[in-house]
C-alpha cells in the first residue's frame, strides 16, 4: 500500500505540459479515489492468473535446466501484475502485442499453456509448430499478435493494428507492450507521432523493469521518466506501480478508455522488476543480490494479493491451496505435453514461408 501511494504520488510529479487537460482530468478523478480497490472475485482472479504465469515460468526455467528447452528463453517472473492488471482492464476484441518476454502475455490472453510450453520445447503442438520458439508465437483467436524477437519492432506493428481498428470502426484498442530498453529505438518515436497525428486507439505500455539486459535505465536513457516519452507529441502518460495489480488495472482502464473514445494514444510506464536473469544465462553482475531480494520480499505482486486474500477476504489455507493445486495441474500438464509431443516433421520447414 505504501509503495503504491509513493508511486502514485510520483506520477503527480509529471509536469502538466505532458498531459492535455482532459488527460489531467481523467487522472485526477482516478486519484481522488486513491488506489482502486478490488472485490474478492477480482483479487482471486488476479491471484490465479499471476500464479499461473509464475508457476509456468518456474517450470520453463526447470525444463531449460534439464535441456528440454534450448536457445533463448526470457522469463516474466516479477512482472506478472502488469499484464494481468492490463488484461483485466480490456474488453473482448482488444489486441495485445509484445516483444520476446512474452509467455506471461500469452497466458493472460487466455492462450493454452500446453501450446506455449510446446513451442518452447520446439514441438509440433506449439503455437508456431515449434518453428518460432520462445519469442515467436501468435494466436489470432485470442487476439495475440506476437511474440517479436527484434527489440522495438512490435511498437510500429501495434500502431498499425490500432490504425486498422479505426479504419474498421471496431472499437478495439491495441495494447502495445515494450521494455525500457526498447523505448530507445527510433521507430518508437515514428510510431508515437503517427499514433497521435491520426488519433489511433493504442495504449503503449512501457514495462520499465530497470534493466535492458545488463544496462540499467540510467546508463542508456536521457529521460528516465518514460511516461514523458510522448510529451513532444502531446501523448498523455503516467507512471504506474506495476507491482500492484490494482494500480495497473485502474491506470489501464483510464488509458484504454482514452484510446477507445477516440482521443488517441496513451502511455503507461509500468514500474516493475524482473527477478530472473535477462535470458537463461545471465551472470547478473549489473545488480546486487540485495536489490533483487528486497523487491521480492517487499513488493512481490503475487504476495500482495495473497495477503489481501488472507487478511481482507479471510480465505483459508485450504482455499488458497486449492487454487495453487489447480494452477500446478495446468502447468504440469503443459510440461508433460511439451516433453512428449513429437518434433515437427522436417517437411514442415518449408511451410508458411509464402502461400
Amino acid at each position: 500500500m505504501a509503495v503504491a501511494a509513493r508511486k502514485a504520488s510520483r506520477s503527480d510529479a509529471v509536469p502538466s505540459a505532458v498531459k492535455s487537460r482532459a488527460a489531467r482530468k481523467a487522472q485526477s478523478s482516478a486519484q481522488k479515489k486513491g488506489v482502486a480497490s478490488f472485490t474478492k472475485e477480482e483479487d482471486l482472479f488476479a491471484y490465479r492468473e499471476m500464479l499461473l504465469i509464475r508457476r509456468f515460468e518456474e517450470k520453463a526455467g526447470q525444463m531449460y535446466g534439464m535441456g528440454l528447452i534450448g536457445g533463448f528463453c526470457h522469463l516474466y517472473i516479477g512482472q506478472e501484475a502488469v499484464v494481468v492488471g492490463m488484461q483485466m482492464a480490456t474488453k473482448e476484441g482488444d489486441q495485445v502485442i509484445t516483444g520476446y518476454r512474452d509467455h506471461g502475455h500469452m497466458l493472460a490472453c487466455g492462450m493454452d499453456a500446453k501450446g506455449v510450453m510446446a513451442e518452447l520445447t520446439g514441438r509440433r503442438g506449439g503455437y508456431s509448430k515449434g518453428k518460432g520458439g520462445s519469442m515467436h508465437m501468435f494466436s489470432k483467436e485470442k487476439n495475440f499478435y506476437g511474440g517479436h524477437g527484434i527489440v522495438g519492432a512490435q511498437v510500429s506493428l501495434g500502431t498499425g493494428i490500432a490504425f486498422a481498428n479505426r479504419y474498421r470502426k471496431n472499437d478495439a484498442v491495441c495494447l502495445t507492450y515494450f521494455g525500457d530498453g526498447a523505448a530507445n529505438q527510433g521507430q518508437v518515436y515514428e510510431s508515437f507521432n503517427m499514433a497521435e497525428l491520426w488519433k489511433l486507439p493504442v495504449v503503449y505500455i512501457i514495462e520499465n523493469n530497470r534493466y535492458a539486459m545488463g544496462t540499467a535505465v540510467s546508463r542508456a536513457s536521457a529521460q528516465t521518466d518514460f511516461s514523458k516519452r510522448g510529451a513532444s507529441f502531446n501523448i498523455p502518460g503516467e507512471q504506474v506501480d506495476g507491482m500492484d495489480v490494482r494500480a495497473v488495472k485502474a491506470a489501464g482502464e483510464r488509458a484504454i478508455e482514452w484510446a477507445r473514445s477516440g482521443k488517441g494514444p496513451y502511455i503507461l510506464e509500468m514500474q516493475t522488476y524482473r527477478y530472473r536473469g535477462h535470458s537463461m544465462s545471465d551472470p547478473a553482475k549489473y545488480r546486487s543480490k540485495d536489490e533483487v531480494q528486497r523487491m521480492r520480499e517487499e513488493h512481490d505482486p503475487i504476495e500482495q494479493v495473497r495477503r489481501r486474500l488472507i487478511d481482507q477476504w479471510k480465505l483459508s489455507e485450504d482455499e488458497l491451496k486449492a487454487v495453487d493445486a489447480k494452477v500446478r495441474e495446468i502447468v504440469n500438464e503443459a510440461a508433460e505435453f511439451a516433453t512428449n509431443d513429437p518434433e515437427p516433421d522436417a517437411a514442415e520447414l518449408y511451410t508458411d514461408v509464402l502461400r
Partner: protein
Amino acid sequence: MPRMTMIEAIRSAIDIAMERDRRVVVFGEDVGYFGGVFRCTAGLQQKYGRTRCFDTPISELGIVGTAIGMAAYGLKPCVEVQFADYVYPAYDQIVSEAARIRYRSNGQFTCPIVIRMPSGGGIFGGQTHSQSPEALFTHVCGLKVVVPSNPRDAKGLLIAAIDDPDPVIFFEPKRLYNGPFDGHHERPVTPWSRHPLGEVDAGHFTVPLGKAEVRRKGDSVTVLAYGTMVYVAEAAAEETGIDAEIIDLRTLLPLDLDCIVESVRKTGRCVVVHEATLTSGFGAELAALVQEHCFYHLEAPVGRVTGWDTPYPHAQEWDYFPGPARVGEALVRAMEA
C-alpha cells in the same frame, strides 16, 4: 605462443588497436560496462575509460549513424551490433551513408568504421539470432566484408579492418567463438586451446583483407567456404574420402579471385558452401565467377550447399544447418558428374 579463443583474439585485436591509435573508439549495446554479451570487449572500458569504450542505448541505427559521423571527422569507430540479426535498423545508414561517403564527397570524406556482428546458426537461436546476412552487404559497393574462421585470422583481420580507410562489415561466426564446429552437434566441441589455429601472437599483426587461405590441399574438387562451413567442409572431405581442396575465403569483399581460379583450374570441379539461404546468396556470385573464369576447365556443374530458403527455424536446427552429410553428398555429386 599464447592460446586464445576467438573471443579472446577479437578482444586482443581491439585492445591493440585502441592502444596504438587514440582515434579508435568502441561502443555498442552492453559493450562497455558489461563487456559485450559474448565478452568480446570485456575489460576495455576499465582500461581505456568510458569515453573510448562505452554502452549505447538499443538503437542500431543510432549506433551506426553516429559512428559514420565520427569517422567522417577523423575518429575510427569499431562498433558492435549485438547479433547480425539486429543490423537491419542500421541498414539504411550502412548502405546510403557509410558505403557512399567517399564516392559522394569526391574522396574528401571517408568512412573508416568497423561494424562487428556475431552471425550464423548452430546455437538454437531461431529466426532472430541465427542469420547470415552477408549477401545483403556484398551486394553494396563501397563496403568490405570479412568472415574469419579461427582466432588467429579473427585477430589479424580485425586489426587490418580497423586500420582500413573504408567501412568494413566484420562477421563473427558465433558458433566458432569457443572452438571449431564441423556440424557434428552431437559431439563435444574441441576448444581452441587444443587447435593449432588457437595459437595467436599476443602482439600486433595483420592478416590482409582480400587474401584467401587454402585450408586443405587437394586435387579432386575445390570447396569455397568461409566461417563455420570451413570445418563442415573439412569433415565432409574426411568422411567421403574425397581429396577436396578447401579454400577459406576469409574476405568476401574484396574477393581473392586469383586463389579461387588457380584452384578450380587445377581440380576442374567446384562446390560452394555457406550457411546463408540459397537464392541470391553469396554462393551465386561465386558460382558465376567460377564459370566466367574457369568454364573450360570445369568437368562438373558448380554445386551449392546452403541453408534452405526459409527463415531459420527454432526446431529442426540440424535439418536446416548444412552439415557434413549434405556437403559430402555435393562432393560426391561433383565427382560423379
